[in-house]
């Protein structure tokens, strides 16, 4: 049994309306595939090269309309599904996660939580390397690093579109009364955009890294949201995507939260 066979069964039995998975793209890459008919299930692949977080599609209106769908889910995808449930964007009864090799059916939030407990999370070597480099820099060097990186941003919003947690219909970036952030791609606007995005993902980012992967000019933009997530973890001892019950680090508090800088 593999993902193809599982999907075929699910579609044939009418258990799900569609399977969101991956298929072969150009040059050995994988791209998302939306399978609605059992006979098309053999296009699916599920291997190491399947990196994208498919949870992103669950909040799309076309997908929402379908009803229950199955998703080929890597651990990050599972975390995103839980976080989306907590934020009332995805209903438990509307998702069936296909985890592991694609045949492990996780039909409830609880099942997903239990499965995730067995998955380890590690930072890719390339990210580790950049973070190490940043940690050796002084403030001015970090500023120079990010200014150089962000100067390449063309504000295509691919990062935002790829992020499973960037589902807001009306992003702060789209606000024009007031116009919080200048629209054009420009040093101040770029800094502010990424600052807004990182802050809005603090306590919500499931650390899939899709935003960074999506960037056409290769800015490691995910490291900003990773950083916020890490400071949430270090200071409040929690991580996004751990549960389908809302526990947003920035809308809760403990009277004894410890900081060292308030005078």
């Amino acid at each position, binding site marked *: 049994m593999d993902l193809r066979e599982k999907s075929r069964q699910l579609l044939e039995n009418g258990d799900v309306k569609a399977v969101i998975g991956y298929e072969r793209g150009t040059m050995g890459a994988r791209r998302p595939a939306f399978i609605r008919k059992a006979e098309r299930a053999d296009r699916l692949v599920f291997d190491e090269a399947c990196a994208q977080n498919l949870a992103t599609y669950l909040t799309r209106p076309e997908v929402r309309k379908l009803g229950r769908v199955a998703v080929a889910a890597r651990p990050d995808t599972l975390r995103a599904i839980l976080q989306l449930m907590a*934020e*009332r*964007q995805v209903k438990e009864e509307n998702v069936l996660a296909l985890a592991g090799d694609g045949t492990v059916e996780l039909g409830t939030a609880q099942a997903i939580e239990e499965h995730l407990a067995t998955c380890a999370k590690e930072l890719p070597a390339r990210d580790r390397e950049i973070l190490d480099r940043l940690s050796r820099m002084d403030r001015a060097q970090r500023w120079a690093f990010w200014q150089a990186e962000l100067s390449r941003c063309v504000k295509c919003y691919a990062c935002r579109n790829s992020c499973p947690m960037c*589902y*807001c*219909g*009306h*992003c*702060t970036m789209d*606000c024009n*009364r*007031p116009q*919080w952030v200048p629209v054009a791609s420009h040093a101040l606007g770029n800094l502010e955009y990424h600052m807004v995005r990182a802050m*809005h993902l603090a306590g919500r980012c499931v650390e899939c890294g899709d935003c960074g992967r999506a960037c056409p000019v290769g800015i490691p933009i995910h490291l900003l949201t990773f950083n916020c997530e890490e400071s949430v973890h270090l200071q409040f001892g929690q991580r996004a995507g751990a549960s389908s019950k*809302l526990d*947003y680090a*920035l*809308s*809760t508090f403990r009277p004894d939260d410890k900081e060292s800088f308030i005078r």
Partner: protein
Amino acid sequence: MSRIGVFTCHCGENIGATVDCAKVAERTRNVPGVVHSVDYKYMCSDPGQSMIKEAIKEHGLTGVVVAACSPRMHEPTFRNAVEEAGLNPYLCEMANLREHCSWVHEKNDATTDKAADLIRVMVEKVKHNTPLHPIRVPVTKRALVLGGGIAGIQAALDIANAGHKVVLVEKSPSIGGHMSQLSETFPTLDCSQCILTPRMVEAARHPNITLMTYAELEKLEGFIGNFKATIRRKARQVDEKLCTGCGLCITKCPNKKIPDEFNEGLGKRSAIYVPFPQAVPNKPVIDKTNCTFYKSGKCKVCEKMCPTGAIRFDQQDELVTLDVGAIVLATGFKVMRTDKFPEYGYGKYADVIDGLQFERLASASGPTLGVMKRPSDGKEPETVVFVACSGSRDRAKGVPYCSKICCMYTAKHAMLYKHKMHHGKAYVFYMDIRSGGKDYDEFVRRAIEEDDVKYIRGRVSRIYEEDGQLIVKGADTLMGGEPVEIKADMVVLATAVQAQDGSEELAQKLHVSYDPYHFFAESHPKLKPVETNTAGIYLAGACQAPRDIPETVAQASGAAAKVAALFSRDELTREPVVAVVNRLPAPTFSYCVGCFLCQSACPYQAIEAEEIRGRDGTLIKTLAKVNAGLCQGCGTCVSTCRTKAIDIQGFSNEQIFAELMTL
């Protein structure tokens, strides 16, 4: 297009002497949108207000900025004036040129520049102001009074007599508070019980008052006019309805060696007890930590004795929820104990007592039936030293303030002692005599002149025991600091008045502020002495600051008047500074994505879910919606919302952004 009028006030010399008001008004004329800018000596005066009203009509103003004192002072004044001229009051803002500028900076160009900046900020804000309308909420005409001392009793009676329902909640088994422990009261020396007991009985019998003794506030939700209070009625282990107060159980209880709180440890009581003979209600409670049955599982003598079968060993605490419209806080004070004084023996010496203990010794109903007997051996003390300011006005003791009542009760104590023991010697060590009040100074003079109490100005540095006597060492500062040593039989420390234990937690439950010493904070030290910062919660008595009885009663009646005024209306209007979730035409409906992160951020549970349904009833979207009755306008939700769907009226994103962008 905005047509803004700006009115710069000199506040006499207060602003005018530091800020060049004419120049500021001149410069403001050039700010885009400003069509009228003038300066005037006193904007808050009648002519000043008329100036604003006329200008609104003459220039067709769409917004007003008054550059004067703090908005916390005069915002209502000017908003009223603006409203009288037919403009929505929320189209008026104030720039704070006095507290935030002229009073804190030197007279120079930079200060005038700052004044102009502060005005520009408010002009930008007011351009984005929108007309707002007060929010109306219903009022539940029932008051909750917390604390059954004289403050709480008086407040409850006054509210009840105004025709409204009151629930009086008292933590201990009886109402009465500290006043019930006092022997005689200054400045008239009338017996405390004699004047208090009738009030206690009246409160208990009043048809509008429900008494809940041995009860405490567990939780408070809601807001002015609409509080929901949860009260924990602690288990008395006695069925109040069946008990007739005959007291047989008390006489038969085998466990009679428990230090008596009412007598400040100078007497003993049984495990089932009423705190004092005049207690209201006169129904006993079982002290579970000391009851033989709860300790060893055997006894139940009281149960066997009770003729009405009122004893209930299985009684549990009960939680009651009450809808109330207003709350009076009257939880009183405590006195510092003698063990806080290493220099006076850490409370080791039985004959070094505090003022409340002296009250019990002097009381005809006290453990000695009013005969002066010192605690250690029952001997009549021939020499007594009274030490005023014990702990008060002493930073090292954490009490830099004056406890206010001690000068008076110390004079009273010395007098009472002399009245009981004419041949005895009474000394008072004091720092200053603070006896302001009607007939108060005369009272102290009487102690000195008629009753021959020796007043020594100076601190007592040490007290120690030697051969069954207490050696009091001090200095007489009026004699050039000459050392004084007195051999005394008893010493009475007028220890500091402090906030009741647990005040901090209670304040947090009620969302009211407290001062650094944990006394509850009034809303304004002069003009709002009975209000707290939380609308609908008022203060009475010594829970706010040290107070004597006349002041306590006056304040309690003040608080009651506030409650009665609130209850005189069926509906209450509230400031419309509340959050709103934006609404748009279909198919968007709102920028809100229904993530409800704002809901968990709201301290007042003011955010609800609203379902948008199609004509056929299918759910299209679930959106956040603010309950304007619950929202207090903090704006925490606004900073949490990523889509900027939720915003707060009066401090909106557009307003603040515009302010910031003009700096």
